[in-house]
């Protein structure tokens, strides 16, 4: 059991390394926990006030989360959620939503 856990740990570390430090699986877990209710698990939010995230550029998503966390971008709802995220959580979430089938058009 402990060996299995170690193997999983090594495997997830290897995956994370391949994805430039971002762990998409961990991002999905965090998305289920925090983001899904408003933005949808695939990032295709049903509510017009909440932006669609699926297929958005990961560096833009990460910047938005960092700005909400720092207060540079002000939104009472997002400040609470982003404030609780670590830098690693932000990279993971950005990679996860960017990896979802694009609901945003490719060309613009």
């Amino acid at each position: 059991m402990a060996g299995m856990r170690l193997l999983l740990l090594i495997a997830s570390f290897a995956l994370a390394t391949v994805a430039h430090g971002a762990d998409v699986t961990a991002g999905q877990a965090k998305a289920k926990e925090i983001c899904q209710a408003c933005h949808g698990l695939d990032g295709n939010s049903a509510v017009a006030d909440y932006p669609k995230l699926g297929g958005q550029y990961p560096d833009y998503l990460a910047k938005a989360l960092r700005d909400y966390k720092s207060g540079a971008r002000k939104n009472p709802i997002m400040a609470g959620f982003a404030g609780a995220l670590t830098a690693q959580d932000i990279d993971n979430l950005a990679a996860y939503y960017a990896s979802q089938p694009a609901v945003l058009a490719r060309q613009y």
Partner: protein
Amino acid sequence: MTRYFAIALLLSLPALASAQTPAQPAAPAGDPLKGREKTRMCEGCHGIEGWRTAYPEVYRVPKLGGQHEAYLASALKEYKSGARSHPSMRAIAGSLSDADIADLAAYYAQGGVKTASQ
């Protein structure tokens, strides 16, 4: 029991009706065709796939096509008012009228592509 429920239902009807009425008049609907004519200031960055901002941070500018119209309009209004800060977006959004914002939001929300009537 049923009578009480019926009375409660009747009493709540005005509240339900008023809940469906928007507190503020809705913003004028944007015209995607007019919006398409107003994208000159947008396409230098948002019209090139993978384009990156150079200042103040380096990241790819967001994709807009297919985004919710209400979100796009609120983002432009926040840039215009200064509530959301970005040097280029502040300047560009500052030059837009409410009608420009509504038209651009309508245009990008439909995917930023030509409509059948064009």
